[in-house]
């Protein structure tokens, strides 16, 4: 880590990073710009309330409800807001088909649809992903154990502005008659980024 310029033998000591972040919070608090109790609530929100379960619920709904699917593809912000979830403007859902696989990246920073997928995983923010996704997406997919047909178009969406993208994968075969709730257990975070495929029925969480 950059801020941790040197190692500490005494583990009871705070690292330089911890000290510097603590100093920043103290100064911002004493000067009246932030309230630590409100910071606690923000942390709680990101640790317990947001997450890919929100996106998964929308995808599962689209799998069972053609009207909702059309609404999601037309305006994902509006459609998911209709499920009672607060979603930022310009969320765009893109559909995977046998002819086309979508993959989302932000090469310039790490833009990510937080409100429907939660905090981005470290790999999404990493140099390997950001550098390779636009040039060698099949190589990136191989890192995730995903192989597509050579004729399947790979469409990479570089999130260079305040639009955000969520991938809608096709409903796995063998799930006829499944409830929306059960279908949602097949929708992984990675399949909504495009680096994974949905779980198959025999891989479903118990």
């Amino acid at each position: 880590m950059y801020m941790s310029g040197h190692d500490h033998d005494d583990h009871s000591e705070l690292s330089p990073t911890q000290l510097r972040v603590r100093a920043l919070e103290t100064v911002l608090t004493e000067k009246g710009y932030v309230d630590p109790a409100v910071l606690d609530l923000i942390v709680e929100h990101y640790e317990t309330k947001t997450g890919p379960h929100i996106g998964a619920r929308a995808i599962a709904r689209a799998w069972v409800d053609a009207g909702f699917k059309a609404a999601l593809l037309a305006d994902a912000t509006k459609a998911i807001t209709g499920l009672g979830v607060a979603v930022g403007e310009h969320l765009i859902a893109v559909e995977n088909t046998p002819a086309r696989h979508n993959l989302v990246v932000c090469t310039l920073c790490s833009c990510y649809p937080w409100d429907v997928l939660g905090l981005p995983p470290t790999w999404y923010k990493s140099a390997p992903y950001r550098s390779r996704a636009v040039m060698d997406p099949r190589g990136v997919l191989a890192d995730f154990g995903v192989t597509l047909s050579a004729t399947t178009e790979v469409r990479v969406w570089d999130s260079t502005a305040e639009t955000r993208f969520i991938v809608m994968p096709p409903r796995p075969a063998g799930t006829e008659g499944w409830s929306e709730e059960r279908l949602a257990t097949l929708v992984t975070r990675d399949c909504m980024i495009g680096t994974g495929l949905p779980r198959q029925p025999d891989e479903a969480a118990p």
Partner: protein
Amino acid sequence: MNGVHDMGGMHGFGKVEPETNEPAFHAAWEARVLAMQRALRFTRAWNIDMSRDAIERLPAHVYLSASYYEKWALGIERKAIECGLIDADEIESGRALRPGKPLPRMTRSDLPLASTRGSFSRPSAAPARFKPGDRVRTRNLNPPTHTRLPRYARDREGAVEAVRGCHVFPDSVTTAGGENPQWLYTVVFDGRQLWGAHADPALKVSIEAFEPYLEPA
């Protein structure tokens, strides 16, 4: 700015390494940094483009070696100092040495707002110049300041796929030019247009391009 943050198409960073069951945060301080970033939005002292610009201006070796939340912390320090909210000696001493400025502070009732993205849509001053299907070429722009046109997609021909509304223009708002709202488009390129004749023929890449980045092809 042609910085190391503009990573699309670079070689040498190795494999993508997913972490199984990754926690929301890997250390408590990361969560504090995220919370400060979200809460400071309410001071309106700077916007998200200015945050990104501050991080991009970190020295290249720092950008590449710092973790994500370390970069955020350094970006917050920089913006808070540049905007006159705090002074460098206060960070060093770990306490406030002077009174703060009277700025709005986030409260509990703002919490729902803090969890959704801000709105960057703005009314347009003129009709959109391009429509879906139009062939366009990205300009060969190399500003030393903040831009959202990645290097790999400069001076390349593509097609407008969608018009995404009119938004705050990052290149302007980070250089004291005001919000200067501009139309935003999804512009899609063939892989071979970006990466040459040997690129995957079944690859297409799109960027979200502001109108000043584009000219008719």
